[in-house]
């Protein structure tokens, strides 16, 4: 499975989730691209052996910043972009393994997977927080730049 293939799949998945939660059709393409770019960032972290947690963190920071830029460009709420693009970062595989091991009675493994789910979800939430900080920084710089020019 090549990198290009993964990126195309990421685009398709984000597009699909956008259709399910009914985002405006003008936003579908851009949301797909945000998902693709951030999944590329995640893959890049994997190349340097950064692990799933750091990858999810970088991905969610990217999603937060790019969604805010896209929201300003398209004049739409930013959740329209960041909810669908987050779909490929959901720890679905780990969550499933957690449920499966609980059901089968392998509590040691189940707790291990549960911790993974918690840590990945926490990394995504933290990523949003950092992205919010960056967004305010960008808005601040933009304001000052406009004041300098005028």
């Amino acid at each position, binding site marked *: 499975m090549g990198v290009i293939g993964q990126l195309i799949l990421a685009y398709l998945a984000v597009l*699909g989730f956008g*259709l399910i939660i009914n985002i405006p059709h003008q936003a579908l393409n851009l949301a797909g691209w945000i998902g693709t770019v951030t999944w590329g960032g995640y893959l890049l972290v994997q190349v340097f052996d950064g692990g799933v947690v750091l990858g999810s963190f970088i991905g969610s920071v990217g999603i937060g910043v790019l969604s805010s830029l896209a929201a300003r460009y398209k004049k739409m709420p930013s959740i329209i972009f960041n909810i669908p693009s987050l779909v490929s970062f959901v720890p679905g595989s780990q969550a499933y393994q957690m449920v499966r091991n609980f059901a089968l009675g392998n509590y040691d493994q189940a707790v291990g997977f549960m911790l993974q789910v918690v840590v990945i979800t926490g990394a995504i939430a933290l990523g949003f927080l950092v992205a*919010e900080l960056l967004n305010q920084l960008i808005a601040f710089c933009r304001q000052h730049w406009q004041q300098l020019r005028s």
Partner: protein
Amino acid sequence: MTTDELIIATCLKAGKIMVENGSEISRVDDTMTRIAQNAGVVQANTYVTITGVMMSIQGRNATQIASITKRTIDLEKVAQVNQYSREFADQRIDLPTLHARLNQLDQASRSFPLWLQLVGAALVSGPLMIMFRQETINTWPTVLIGTLGYLVFYLLNRYLKIKFLSELAAALFIGFAAEWTYQIGWGTNINDIIIGALMPLVPGVPLTNAVRDILAGNFVSGPARAVEALISAAALGFGIAVVITIF
């Protein structure tokens, strides 16, 4: 209707539509305050939670409450309210028009038809299974079961109106269908099929909004949404756990 009443009715309608269709709370607050300001109110007080919206105009005898009993996910409507609010701020439409348009929007149905949502479910389940599990043998069973699982969820949710029960039923269906494809030899790995097929049902909107609300300091709505997401996840997990224990 006096002007004050119309302002409050318009703001409440906007807030109600936004909360009902899955917007985060700080945006609802912001939009309502903006509409009120653009309508000439100096200071409006809004109190938005996930189950109700309240608004009063400072110094005047006007306060109204709108309760929110149903919640779906339709981000197009959130974007539309946003758009109308912008047009009102630019004075391209006046207050009665805004109110009429919001009423119209509230009645309107989703713009994407069911078959397009099913295409969406297919696009989510297949690609994500390949991305998570790095294998392509089980793609077609996953796509089929994911689409049918979403159809089960959609139909039950439409007629049963209990979201968690529909999720449980959809998860049971996915589990049994995955087991069946495994037994007839079409699918080779039941775990991969279930992971992919469940992805369209993941409570992404409540989860993201819970995080955003909590970060924004809305400690009433944030945890409430987190509970909603948790119960959805638990319903899905329980359905799958039943299937795993049976086989």
